[in-house]
């Protein structure tokens, strides 16, 4: 059996210490994103528009040029960056609230315009940074600080299935939902991110990856329980898979 040495990706800042809560999947997501940038040789040619929420701190860890967008406006700023500098690799790293609630207009229209941008959305079914309120992806029945008796349809309406919505946009080249609950799924997630960046650099359209993630602090769970929840509850509603891939369709 070959020995795999774990190394910090070059795209991460030297000595960077993640400030995410223990058991939170953000750290893994940022790490595999950095690995993809390394592997594709994109680090020095990339600009990111960050978002508001726990995801904002990505610029403290990843060593690429970055601008901090107002809440929900990351894909508008990314559009501005890409239109001004079409040769750059441009991505956003957003939470579900940023991408699918306050920023859903920007998200859908960016996809509809087919901007050559990669958007990564961390879906943890809650507003993490502000203390665990009900968000656009909060599951039915889920208790949060603003749905103390659990999300019910009559009072709160339904959660949004983001990857499916984005796949419906004609400008979308790639839309996938992945998770980080097992080593195998982390590998799959990394492949999906890599694919998205490859498609972006070919200029084929908008690319999107929804990452199912944990928020042990606000879910009031251990990391292990949190990953069980991802598997047993989130995946029931938010089914992992590739919802659109125009490069695959072409090969059929």
């Amino acid at each position, binding site marked *: 059996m070959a020995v795999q040495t774990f190394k910090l990706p070059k795209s991460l*800042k030297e000595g960077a210490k993640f400030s995410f809560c223990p058991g939170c999947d953000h750290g893994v997501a940022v790490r595999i994103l950095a690995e993809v940038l390394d592997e594709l040789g994109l*680090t*020095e*040619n*990339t*600009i990111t*528009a960050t978002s508001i929420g726990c995801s*904002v701190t990505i*610029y403290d860890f*990843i*060593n*690429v*040029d*970055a*601008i*901090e*967008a*107002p809440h*929900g*406006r990351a894909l*508008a*700023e*990314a*559009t*501005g*960056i*890409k*239109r*001004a*500098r079409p040769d*750059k*690799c441009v991505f956003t790293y957003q939470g579900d609230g940023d991408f699918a609630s306050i920023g859903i*207009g*920007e998200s859908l*229209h960016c996809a509809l*315009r087919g901007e050559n941008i990669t958007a990564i959305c961390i879906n943890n079914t809650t507003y993490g940074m502000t203390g665990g309120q009900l968000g656009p992806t909060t599951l039915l029945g889920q208790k949060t600080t603003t749905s103390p008796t659990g999300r019910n349809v009559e009072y709160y309406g339904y959660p949004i299935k983001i990857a499916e919505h984005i796949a419906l946009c004609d400008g979308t080249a790639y839309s996938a939902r992945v998770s980080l609950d097992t080593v195998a799924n982390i590998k799959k997630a990394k492949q999906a991110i890599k694919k998205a960046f490859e498609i972006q650099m070919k200029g084929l359209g908008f690319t999107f990856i929804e990452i199912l993630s944990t928020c042990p602090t606000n879910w009031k769970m251990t990391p292990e329980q949190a990953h069980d929840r991802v598997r047993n509850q989130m995946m029931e509603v938010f089914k992992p898979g590739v919802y659109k891939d125009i490069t695959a369709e072409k090969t059929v």
Partner: protein
Amino acid sequence: MECLQKTKKKVLMKGNYAIANAAVMAGCECYFGYPITPQSEIGEFMSGKMQELKRAYVSAESELAAINMVIGACSTGAKAMTSSSSCAVSLMQEAISYASADELPIVLVSVMRGGPGLGNIYPSQGDYNQAVIGGGNGDYQTIVLAPSTVQECVDLTYKAFYLAHKYKNPTILLADGLLGQMMEPVEFTEYPYPEIDNSSWALSGAKGRNGRIIRSYAPLAENQCVFLNKLYGKYKQIEENETEWEEIDTEDADIVLISFGSPSRNVKSAMKICRKEGLKVGFLRPITLWPFPSKRIAELSKKVKMFLDIEVNMGQMLKDVKLAVNGAVPVEFFNRPVGNPPEVDDIVNKIREIMK
């Protein structure tokens, strides 16, 4: 509308088209916008011209998106702009605050219409406060330029791009519906200002250097104090270097009329009629609404008997005039709440009345 470049002879043009063509001439690389009367011609002109020149144009999904696209483009050092009007500029206030904190050279053309709320599409100066004071959060200041003729729409559009990039500061060209729809002969020279080197801060990919971060998040109060003091140092510099106004016949004046934008044309005419009658009337027109010519008004307040401020709103610049005069002499006010400028005769009558 025919897309123009440099013109040797004068052309008759609407203010909105003149602004758009001047932006193209100034080297604007990206335009992002959302339609609203009375400035839609700007976006219409840009959609064709930018495509023809292989520059960027996006019909944004909202004003929120449009101005944030401008921020994105400006973060790479590009010259970028949006244009809008009144109730829609309200939607952009958050982004203007961010761009001020990020020190980004965004250019916003604001063509004022009636308000508050949806208001109407008549000309107005009701967004003096919106532009000069702003509705965004925190301590910040935008540069505000106010044209009064179509030629000035051109000249000040050039200047807006220059000042925005020179000071890395959001800059607003504050026109009104009358100027936007008005046609006058204009000339387009080459962009008269030097290009500003932005390589020390623009996002371009972290090649051979560490990643740059353009951010406003400042978790530590001490850091924010340092930043704000530095920002206000820059504002002081702008006040010292860039305050601009037009001044006529104030030397022996008993009263100085103060007015900005398109209504100042009528005020100037009124002044001339009064002079012919032997009334000692002077005229001062702020061209930069921020920085405001407070110093000059303060100087004048030591030798004139009163000021008359004339606006098409309920008295927004009036507060700045009063601050500058600081109680030294009376400041009278004459207005039309919304619409075309007050008629010249009415202004003359007001001057006669208060000079009795």
